């Protein structure tokens, strides 16, 4: 009897979280992306995600258009065949993914505690906790996370949490034939990325720069960051991502002020009415 009660009590005990590991992330070097989309297919295959339907967009070779609850890697194609005099034509390709922000708005917005940072420092959706409220969808400035029509819950890149737990490379990075997608300890990746930019500048490719490798005054660093060759907007990335949480203090103060003002106003009205 006592045993049984003890077992009941277990339900209320929080399990010990896994010990924190070295923070892991992605560095996506778009200069070596060949646009093969192996990352998209490897991601869907490993994570058993459905197709998003067959829609020919005519937007270069991009027919999956955007990240969604069921598309966690997406390769953007930008044709720049008519450039300024002297500049050779180019076709930019970039494999987009969840940014795994160091301070993730989706995680801040989640009311259920479904969105957490796992032991690898990755933003992770615990599917069984998610109630499908969609706050995270509105909060993400990159349009990464989405709800799946099938179960109504939010889904996004897990950075192959299950593979990482077994010491394996995420499916997309594993499938990438040219190491455009690199996976590793985030501190090391930032080193590699900086050296790569320097190397490219040395070769005269001065338009190469890192997106999200460092925090800005408005936004945290990204644990999945990119090397780009043109303005972020060209790749459909926000020039200056916003964290909705940054406005909370002002918004709370404003609504507090408004409520006081309304209280005073109504008190005055009722007094008049008496």
């Amino acid at each position, binding site marked *: 009897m006592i045993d049984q009660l003890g077992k009941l009590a277990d339900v209320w005990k929080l399990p010990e979280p896994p010990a924190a590991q070295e923070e892991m992330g992605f560095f996506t070097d778009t200069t*070596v992306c*060949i*646009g*093969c*989309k*192996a990352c*998209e*297919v490897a991601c*869907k*295959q*490993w*994570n*058993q*995600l*459905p*197709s*998003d*339907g*067959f*829609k*020919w967009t*005519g937007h*270069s*070779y991009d*027919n*999956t258009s955007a990240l969604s609850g069921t598309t966690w890697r997406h390769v953007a194609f930008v*044709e720049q*065949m*008519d450039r300024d005099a002297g500049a*050779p*034509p*180019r*076709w930019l*390709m970039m494999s987009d993914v969840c940014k795994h922000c160091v301070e993730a708005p989706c995680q801040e917005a989640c009311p259920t505690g479904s969105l957490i940072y796992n032991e690898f420092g990755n933003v992770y959706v615990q599917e069984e906790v998610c109630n499908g409220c969609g706050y995270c969808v509105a909060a993400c400035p990159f349009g990464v996370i989405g709800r799946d029509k*099938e179960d109504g819950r939010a889904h996004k890149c897990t950075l192959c949490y*299950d*593979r990482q737990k*077994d*010491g*394996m*490379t995420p499916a997309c990075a*594993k499938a990438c*034939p*040219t*190491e455009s997608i690199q996976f590793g300890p985030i501190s090391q990746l930032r080193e590699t990325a900086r050296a790569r930019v320097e190397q490219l500048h040395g070769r005269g490719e001065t338009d190469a720069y890192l997106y999200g490798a460092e925090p800005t005054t408005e936004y945290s660093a990204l644990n999945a960051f990119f090397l780009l060759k043109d303005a972020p907007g060209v790749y459909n990335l926000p020039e200056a991502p916003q964290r909705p949480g940054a406005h909370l203090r002002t918004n709370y103060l404003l609504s507090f002020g408004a409520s006081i003002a309304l209280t005073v106003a109504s008190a005055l009205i009722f007094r008049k009415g008496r």
Partner: protein
Amino acid sequence: MPGLGTSFGRGAATGFQQDLQHSDCILIMGSNMAEAHPVGFRFPMLAKERGAKLIHVDPHFSRTSAMSTQYVAVRTGTDIAFLGGLINYVLTHDRWFRDYVLAYTNAATIVADTFVDAEDNDGVFNGFHPDTKSYEPGLAAWNYAGEPETSKTHTPKEVKAESFSERLGFIENVPPPTDPTLQHPRCVLNILRRHYARYTPEMVASVTGCSAADFLQVAESLCENSGRERTSAIVYAVGWTQHTTGVQTIRAAGILQLLLGNMGRPGGGIMAMRGHASIQGSTDIPTLYDLLPGYLPQPSSLRNHTSLHSYLDQEHVPHGYWSNFPKFMISLLKAWYGDAATKDNDFGFGWIPRIDDNYSQLATAMRMADGKVKGFFLFGQNPAAGAPNGALNRAALRRLDWLVVRDWFEIESASFWKDGPEHPDPATIGTEVFFMPAASSPEKEGCFTNTQRLLQWHDRAVDPQGDCRSDLWFVYHLGKRLKALYAGSTETRDQGLLNLTWNYDPDGPFVLADGQTSRITDEPDTRKVLMEINGYRVADRTQVSGFSDLEADGSTACGCWIYSGVFPSVDHNRAADRRRTPGNYVDPNWGFAWPHNRRMLYNRASADPDGRPWSDRKKYVWWDEARSTWTGFDEPDFEPDKAPTYRPAKGAHGMASIAGNSPFIMKPDGKGWLYAPAGTKDGPLPTHYEPVESPVANPLYRQQANPVVERYDTALNECAPPLDPAYPIVATTYRLTEHYLSGPMSRFNSWLNELQPEMFVEISPELAADRGIVHGGWLVVVNRRGAIEARAMVTRRMRPLTVAGRTLHQIGIPFHWGFAGETVGSIANDLTLIVADPNVSMHEAKAFTCNVRAGRLPASAPSQPVAVAPRPTRERAPETPESDQPEGQFR
């Protein structure tokens, strides 16, 4: 690939993809490597990261072009003009690698005075017979000086130039006469100079549509990056082969690489990128009608092949490695007929069927369309959508009595009787179709031979579902039933089947990768097949260690001599080896490459005539004086203890006739052939001919197209005459990364369909504006074979060219769609023409003419796609320990 075989000795990629990382310049032409071979493309990307130039010459700007340091747009079908221009540039600017060329090529060899160059005869070589439209049998007139009038190895036009015997050529006087001072007017180098003298940068620009400046930049890049210290590589694929001049295009690349001294050297060579997973394997152990395994010629009633003796005498080349040919042939007969093959019955040679005509795929399709073929087997082949002239192929299938289709899905070639652009009435079609479900590669074990001649074993991970079975299972049990059916027959024609060794039964239950026992008990033992291919000693059934163990007396059996060594002992399958060799990028213990695990062919040429590396930077295989042996990073493609100073005695035969400074050991003179006195059916030197369908008059010769082209002019296969004003636009077809060929393996997969869901055609904004076609709208492409509709991809990646002073438009047509699958669309091959290269019967799907207009086809009733596969079940991923899935390495 006689283009490579005739130039160097073996018709296969000369190097391996990993070696491309050490190139200083890579010319990718006739290949869209980034899209069609994305995994191998990592090596050109690595080379580029190390500072190499990456040049892409192609009609359309693809993902390969986007990765290149230089892209040059050219008109499809003009590759020989471009390469001929490069050859001319190298010769006129004296940029050829003198020491290499003089020692390792036939540059100094003197050609017979009967030879008349196409250059002096309006584009036709001597010996042309207008009534037979062939050069037979006057080939002797292309021969070296001092050779007899008739060439022994020349085969009639019905037999294609695939066997080693024909490719290698027969030379009676070895060594042939030479002039090392290169003064003789008929020495090969001087013939070459004259032949290409008119291929100037301006002419190249006028023919191909590129600018002379772009061409010169390519020429300079190649010259700067060739020589002792540097090497350049050439990569090609079906963008070169699928032309009526395909073999000669590859020959032109061979000439260029020999002149630049890039053959047999690291970072050099010619990388043939093959179109299917194991297409190299299916020519090595051929599905071709005119070859026996290992490039032995198929006996033919058109030649003196009445007995084994006359066959061996006819096909035997006394000088060089092919002098061993009788050993390979007799060992093959022993492997096939076992104890029934005896010296007294010619080892069963008489049981092999003779060929009496052209039975290549195209010729067979034409015959089938005429109702002359009763039954047909399709193993992973989809002619209804994937073969040139789809409508003709579907009409041909409708005339069969029976058809067996083994595939994963009900593909176009299995549903042609009820669906398709012709909307056939099933009641009118007599073909009985047997659709048999096939196992996929992870569901069966066996070997792939990849594009670099590398045999890699793959395991059977799981059992196939339901009634799906491997192709081996099907063929094995079919053979058993046929043998039972014919048992007891005394007819001579049945003895081959009855005496065939046919016992690959498993010795016990098969254990799958996860430790479970397979439910399929009658799957043949694939290892037994590979062991027979490797070869064994008949007396004690022990495995031979390689082809040098084979004998011509019936004491050895070998299913395919070039693969010998892959299974040297019962417990060692080298194709399954997966050992890395740290510090050696050649990785000789990963899989097994033919021949004899040599990863780079002709690698003797990586050392100078004295056996020393040409430079420290480019060392690969060299002569170790102290140990009196060749050594290096790879298995030497040379007799290991033959000193560089060795010179053959007069009258020497076999390998003894190959000097220590002659790297091309298959060739009777040991040299790389700049000029091919034999081995091709359309001339000793590559010459620019227009595609059979072309809106341009040949600017170089009065001869418009290849004079000996194989033509099939029938009502279903109408060809537009040259310069037909009704079809002024040039079209080419190609693949996208997202799909595979005509789609049987990709259009039933929703993960791939969502990436490229619809048929489209790529056209330039200029052409679109001219025809009122809008981006994303519909267009119709039409020519004499048919009309197709597709979405219009209007893109600057396609551009109009200026050819011979006129604006010329090109369109690009991906050929992945058909009427069966989760996504359906028009069949690009309904526009392509059946017309063929005379050497190999390869079609010309990469260059034809058409016209385009905005809109859709009248009364188009598109086929219905099959239902999309159900959503994947979201089970938890299996817990897989790291040790079970070792991480591969990139560098």
